[in-house]
């Protein structure tokens, strides 16, 4: 009994990886990989973060969930930095389709080609 309580509370605190929020979002390891990009900028952390973004898209689709805000946009930014403008445009469109509230920013971003600045 006591051990099950301990486990329950540990799960509560651990931010369990497969957790889906009350807004029905799956974030995977997003906060950790993005944090590493900030903490130790470079290829290793960026590759890991981009992979995680792709995994969040796949798993969200598998679970029939909306892709969380900003995930497509960040993938678009990575594509833009590789000068893959078609992929970038595609991702920004997906962000905008998922969240119409992001339309102004997505169009602004495409116009300014921020990734190249």
């Amino acid at each position, binding site marked *: 009994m006591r051990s099950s309580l*301990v486990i329950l*509370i540990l799960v509560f605190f651990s931010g369990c990886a497969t957790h889906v*929020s009350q807004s029905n979002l799956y974030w995977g390891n997003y906060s950790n990989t993005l944090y590493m990009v900030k903490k130790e900028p470079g290829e290793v952390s960026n590759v890991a973060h981009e992979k995680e973004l792709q995994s969040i898209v796949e798993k969200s689709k598998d679970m029939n969930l909306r892709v969380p*805000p900003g995930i497509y946009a960040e993938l678009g930014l990575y594509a833009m930095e590789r000068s893959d403008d078609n992929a970038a445009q595609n991702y920004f469109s997906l962000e905008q389709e998922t969240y119409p509230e992001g339309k102004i920013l997505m169009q602004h971003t495409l116009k300014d080609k921020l990734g190249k600045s």
Partner: protein
Amino acid sequence: MRLKLLLVGSLILLMSGCVSNTTKGQAYPEMYNEKPVAILVVPAINRSTAADAPILYGSTISEPLSNAGFYVLPIELTDRFLRNEGLAEGEVLKDIPPQKFAEPFGADAVLYVTIDKWDTNYYVIGGNVTVGASFLMKSSKTGATLWSYQDEIPVNTSGDSGGGLLAALIATAIATGMQDYVPVARNVNLMTLKSIPYGKYHNNYDKDQSQSIKLSKIPTESTD
């Protein structure tokens, strides 16, 4: 044994009625009037001694704020825009009315976070740590305050004598080798965002006016 004490401490902290009770509807009527969806999170204002706190903190807020039902304008994009405009410092942005810079982002509201206190050395056994943060959300149409919250969480990390929610998290952080303050940041976010009226994408959107919340401090107009 220590874990058990930490857990007991956590539960006591959770249950203690040492703060004022109110409801979301009473505390934040403007949120229910304006119903902001798209939120621009500007770089955090740093009043702590950790120079890299704002940039690291920025990686922890999208997830919980989105989970509360909002569309968080992608921070990786908005940060670049702000930097290009010479507005990378939260300190500078604080003094500019949100109506003046939020429009190009399509933001309904702007979230300002001030990191008041921070300590990256919390994992040193025997130390004391206080984590403090203030949150302020302003309408980008009127500049009025829609939501604000301030919290300060003192933690005794010296082991058996104290404990609490953060101490339990710190124990987790040590166990996972993540000797950094991201778990603390997450916890501050979680505790803080319990008070925010849910946004459009949350299951309980516009149904949480009567939900009771605890305010450790009366919300103020200023982030100072």
